[in-house]
C-alpha cells in the first residue's frame, strides 16, 4: 500500500531525516550514523519516505544517495501552511485587538 504523506511525516525521526536531507544527500549508512540507529531502522524510515515520494534515491558508483524531493513536500506543506497561516493571521489580529483594549483602559 502506498504510504500516506501525513503518516510519514507524523514521525519525529522521519522529520529529522527530511530536515537533514533538505541540506545534503546521504547514504543509508551515513543516516544510521547521524541518528545513531541500526541500519534496519533506517531502512524502514527510508521505505516509508520513499513510498510517499518525499525522498528519491540516486545511484552514485556503488552507493545510493537519498535526496529530498522538495516538490512533493511543497504540496503537503502548502496545505498545512495555509491552515497554519490562517491561524497566525487571526492571532496577530487578536494581538492588535488586545493592545487596543488595554490602551483604552
Amino acid at each position: 500500500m502506498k504510504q500516506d504523506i501525513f503518516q510519514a511525516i507524523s514521525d519525529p525521526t522521519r522529520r529529522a531525516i527530511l530536515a537533514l536531507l533538505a541540506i545534503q544527500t546521504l547514504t543509508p549508512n551515513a543516516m544510521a550514523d547521524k541518528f545513531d540507529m541500526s541500519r534496519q531502522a533506517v531502512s524502514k524510515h527510508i521505505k516509508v519516505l520513499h513510498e510517499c515520494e518525499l525522498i528519491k534515491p540516486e545511484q552514485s558508483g556503488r552507493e545510493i544517495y537519498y535526496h529530498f524531493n522538495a516538490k512533493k513536500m511543497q504540496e503537503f506543506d502548502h496545505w498545512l501552511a495555509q491552515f497554519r497561516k490562517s491561524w497566525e493571521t487571526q492571532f496577530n489580529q487578536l494581538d492588535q485587538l488586545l493592545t487596543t483594549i488595554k490602551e483604552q483602559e
Partner: protein
Amino acid sequence: MNNDLLFDFNVDKAAKTVYITREFNAGQSLVWDAFTNAELLDQWGAPAPMRAKTKYMNFEVGGRRFYAMISPDGQERWSVQEFTSITPKTNFKMYNAFADKDENRELPGSEWDYNFSEQNGITKVHIVIFNESFERLEKLLEGFKIGFTMTLKNLEELLTTLS
C-alpha cells in the same frame, strides 16, 4: 507584534488531531473574553481579508454560536458551534459543524477544546481540534483559501515547528 510570544502548531494525522498553542500579551480574563464574547470574536476570528459575523451567541453549556466567515466577494460560509462544557476563565469545549444559512448542520463536525492559563501577565491558550474525519479537516481549509506561496525557507521553519 511581539515575536517572543510562543506559537506552536502541530498536526497528528493518525490521531486526526490538530494542536495549537499561542501566548498573548494580556491577562487571562481579557483573553478569555476575546474567545468567548461574540463582539470581540468578530473583530479577530477570521483571517483577513475574510471577516467573521456572529448572528447570535449563547455562551452557556448547550448554547450555540451561529456565525459566518465572509469572503471579500461576499460569500458566506456558515457554522454552528455548540458549547458542551464551560469552566469560566480556564476551559471551554465546543462541537463545531458547517451549516447552511438556516442553521441546518452538516455532520460530522469537529470537537474543540480550549485551555487558558496565565503566568507573569502572559496568557497561554492551548487548542486541541479533534476531527472525526480528516477529509473534513481538509474541507475546513476551503474556508481559508488565501494566496500563499511556500518557499524552501519556510519549509525548514515548518519542519522545526513540527518537530
